[in-house]
């Protein structure tokens, strides 16, 4: 198995490329395993803690294995004011797990995230790369049906 970052772009082997490399590694395997983080740290000359720190800081990087589809509901203020709580509750009822968890069948992971830039459509959520706005608890079931 080749090391993460090796052979992708020979120029990107500097500390400042860390975020790009993490993103790339995540898109390849769905999450950032300890092994991935340790290999990246070694190739960039950073400590494991520093890479782990960056990986755990960003909502869109995951240090836990994820389901096939990732639901991210915005927990920032504009969505909160537009009753994001009811949407979180709705998703919880629909798929039966709490934020931070993954369904047993691996179909969905459920996360709360910081602002996703869809405040004009608050309350909003993302499923994988699709943004769904102007949500009501009623709409959730139909939206989630499209993701197998």
């Amino acid at each position: 198995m080749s090391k993460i970052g090796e052979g992708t772009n020979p120029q990107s082997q500097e500390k400042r490329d860390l975020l790009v490399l993490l993103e790339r590694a995540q898109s390849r395997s769905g999450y950032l395993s300890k092994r991935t983080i340790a290999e990246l740290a070694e190739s960039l000359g950073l400590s494991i803690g520093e890479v782990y720190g960056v990986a755990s800081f960003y909502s869109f990087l995951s240090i836990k294995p994820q389901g096939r589809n990732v639901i991210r509901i915005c927990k920032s203020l504009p969505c909160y004011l537009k009753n994001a709580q009811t949407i979180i509750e709705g998703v919880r009822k629909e798929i039966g797990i709490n934020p931070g968890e993954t369904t047993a069948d691996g179909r969905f992971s459920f996360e709360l995230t910081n602002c996703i830039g869809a405040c004009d459509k608050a309350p909003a959520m993302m499923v994988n790369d699709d943004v769904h706005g102007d949500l009501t608890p009623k709409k959730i079931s139909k939206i989630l049906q499209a993701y197998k």
Partner: protein
Amino acid sequence: MAEITVTINGRQVSAKEGMTILEAALENGIDIPTLCHHQDLTPLGACRICVVEVEGSRTLVGSCHTPITEGMVIHTHSDKVLATRRMIVELLLASHCGSCFMCDKANICELRKIAADLEVGLPRFQMRKNYYPLEDISPYVVRDLTKCIMCRRCARACSEVAGHNVFAIAYRGFDSKVVVDFDQPIDKEVCRDCGVCISFCPTGALGKPREAKEEKRGKPLIITS
């Protein structure tokens, strides 16, 4: 280095170009409280205790990392500055564990000293405290993150003074904390006998393991007749 003139608290003083406001103030006998700052470490400006008022600036500025410029007019102890510092200490104390009675470093704690100097008592804000289990498996350092105020002095001391890189900051917001590798308790595998970070910690978050029969530091003197 060129000499430049700044006004601190109504007094014109001259200082060298490239100095920070804090250094210029100290050189002229003006005491500005600091917490995350340490003379042997790179300035960071994390704690905001050292904020001062600079005329013409939209916000208060951190004096430990702001260089002086010609003609700067600085107020280090205006009402606004003092009110802000008190609020910062209050907020730090609100999420601090607050069990000074039980703390080995209670009488050498910089946070407690600053709170006393600024006359901050019990914080008004009641909030949920983070709980982290005590990490005492290392023979060199005991870590109690419930007392950590995230000043990052340990992380900087470890990389800049000790030449290691044991500590890093992970997670986000209220969850953020100083981690070792994959957020694991500090043990003798990752950190060898050096103890540099312990002397840099302003609170009781980092300490030496207590030796058998060793008494608490700074304990009250009891005179027996």
